[in-house]
């Protein structure tokens, strides 16, 4: 168990691609950090630099007190779970788990104890004599987890470990990983592009975009106060509605047309205004008008079971917005609706930089 410190870490690949552009994160002992961002944002690169599989161009990585920039992956006291599991195909499950321990010169009975213990926790005891090819995807995933936990390392590194599983298994393993990490209290860094996985697993989220950190924070804080339009549209599903607005005669108005009324709390000329689908309510349903009201025309209704998503356009045909509505609600295409949101649920972002405006 250890802290992990990244100090202005940069990665420039041989071709000149700057995949990570000066990232600093302090990871506490036992913390579960999730690196999340769209494809190509540099999250795997960052994780692989912590693992020692990728050289660090500039900056410093410390595991515990030790600077590990030049330390061999095997000596960093980390264990990694790969997306495609990376099991050794010619070894039995038992040997897959034992391999890393044998190479560290551990005594046979201690190895046996640890392998059996991991097998018990992960319920893979019945397959210890099988080769990986004779296992299902979910079982392989467990073996890959087992290979990490037998090591009892200072940190676990996960690179999209669940993305090859089907939806149901993914949810199940997600819960299991969380439970396991909480009981082992091992510092973990987990990479995913799935915002739901990120939200549910993380103690703290690190949202990356184009090699930079957009925001670090507890999932609920990131959700409540996204630091930029990028984070706002990435975290939360369906994504936050973002509308271009400008100063009007009274408060703010849409840049593309009429229909919006909102106060202008910061006195600027232009904003990108954000409001989540779940924070928009229908005035028709008896909800009193809040800080923001918006007239819109219904396009389609998309039921997903527990709730439905209503797609509507506002400001002429300028913008499509999404509203979360109760699952049995009925709407006709072309129907006019009036929406409202509370002041605390309306986010303001700089119209040019996309950064959150709070003053």
């Amino acid at each position: 168990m250890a802290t992990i410190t990244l100090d202005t870490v940069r990665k420039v690949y041989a071709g000149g691609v700057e995949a990570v552009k000066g990232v600093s994160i302090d990871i506490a002992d036992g913390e579960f950090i999730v690196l999340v961002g769209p494809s190509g944002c540099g999250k795997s690169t960052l994780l692989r630099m912590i693992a020692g599989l990728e050289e660090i161009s500039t900056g410093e990585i410390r595991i515990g007190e030790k600077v590990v920039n030049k330390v061999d992956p095997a000596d960093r006291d980390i264990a990694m779970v790969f997306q495609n599991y990376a099991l050794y195909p010619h070894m039995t499950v038992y040997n897959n788990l034992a391999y890393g321990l044998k190479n560290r010169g551990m005594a046979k009975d201690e190895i046996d104890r640890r392998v059996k213990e991991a097998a018990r926790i992960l319920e893979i005891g019945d397959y210890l004599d099988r080769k990986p090819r004779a296992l299902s995807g979910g079982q392989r995933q467990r073996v890959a987890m087992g290979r990490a936990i037998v090591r009892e390392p200072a940190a676990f590194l996960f690179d999209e470990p669940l993305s090859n599983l089907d939806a149901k298994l993914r949810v199940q393993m997600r819960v299991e990983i969380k439970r396991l990490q909480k009981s082992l209290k091992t510092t973990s860094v987990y990479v995913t592009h799935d915002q739901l996985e990120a939200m549910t697993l993380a103690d703290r989220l690190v949202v990356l975009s184009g090699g930079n950190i957009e925001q670090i924070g507890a999932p609920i804080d990131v959700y409540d106060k996204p630091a930029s339009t990028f984070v706002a549209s990435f975290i939360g599903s369906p994504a936050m509605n973002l509308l271009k607005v400008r100063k009007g005669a009274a408060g703010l108005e849409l840049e593309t047309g009429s229909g919006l009324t909102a106060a202008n709390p910061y006195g600027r000329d232009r904003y990108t205004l954000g409001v989540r689908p779940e924070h928009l309510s229908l005035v028709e349903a008896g909800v009193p008008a809040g800080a923001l009201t918006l007239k819109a025309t219904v396009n389609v209704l998309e039921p997903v079971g527990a709730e439905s998503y209503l797609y509507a356009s506002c400001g002429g045909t300028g913008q499509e917005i999404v509203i979360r509505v109760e699952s049995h609600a009925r709407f006709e295409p072309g129907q006019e609706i009036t929406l409202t949101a509370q002041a605390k649920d309306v986010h303001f972002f700089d119209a040019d930089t996309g950064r959150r405006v709070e003053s």
Partner: protein
Amino acid sequence: MKRVQFTNASLPYLLLLPQLAIIVIFFYWPSAQAIQSSFYLEDPFGFGSTFVGMENYTDVLGSNEYASIARFTIAFTLLVTFLSLSIALLLAVKADAVLKGSSTYKTLLMWVYAVAPPVAGLMGVMFFDMHIGPFLKVAAFFGWDFKIGLNYFDTAFAMVVIAVWKQIPYNFIFFLSGLQAIPKSVREASMIDCRSGFRRFWSIILPLLAPTAFFLLIINMTYSLFDTFGIVDVVVKDKAANNPITLVYKVYMDGFRGGDLGGSSAQSVILMLVVFVLTIFQFRFIERRVHYG
């Protein structure tokens, strides 16, 4: 594997027919002929033949000369197989470390194989040539009076070097694609699990290369036993005298130069048996240890 259903039951056999015909005409038929003539003493001028039973076999197996050629053939085969496999593997491992999947380089390296065999044989002989061979100068520098075709050891040395040289590109390409087929993440996982590169090679890379290595082992043994005929011929230039030759070359010498068709046939039959036993051995005992991904 996809299963294909033929509506007409005889169609698969029809499709197999050309291949079967080739095997029968060029393999079973001559083999049967060889077995038959190995029991006869043929008149060299074609005036009939006499049945002599096992005499050709007892003659061959009782001969000191045959025993010494057999010993050389074994040594030659083992040496050529071992050297061409291990050097090719070493080169492939080094190349693989540089390549990391760059297909341009890989294509370039493939050309070595396309060009090498004919050129290599010729170059090899020139390299060791008594008059123009540059190797002689190198050997002379170390005080080695190299005499190809005259000194038994020197000739054997040249044969092995040329045979190995010719086979390396072939093995190299197979090893290289075998190495490149090992998933990157498996290597990386092993880097986290094992600090020593040497140990990783033995415990992860080599076992994963085993199917390739096994295939190449059989190919290389067969190559050393039979396909080196041309090299032996070029090196000894028909004058076996006290030069080292392989069993296959002796079959040719006795049959076509010596006119002893019976004895030569008996030798071929013996070789056939050796290959048969060798193949069974390889599949039964070595292949068992091979992991197919």
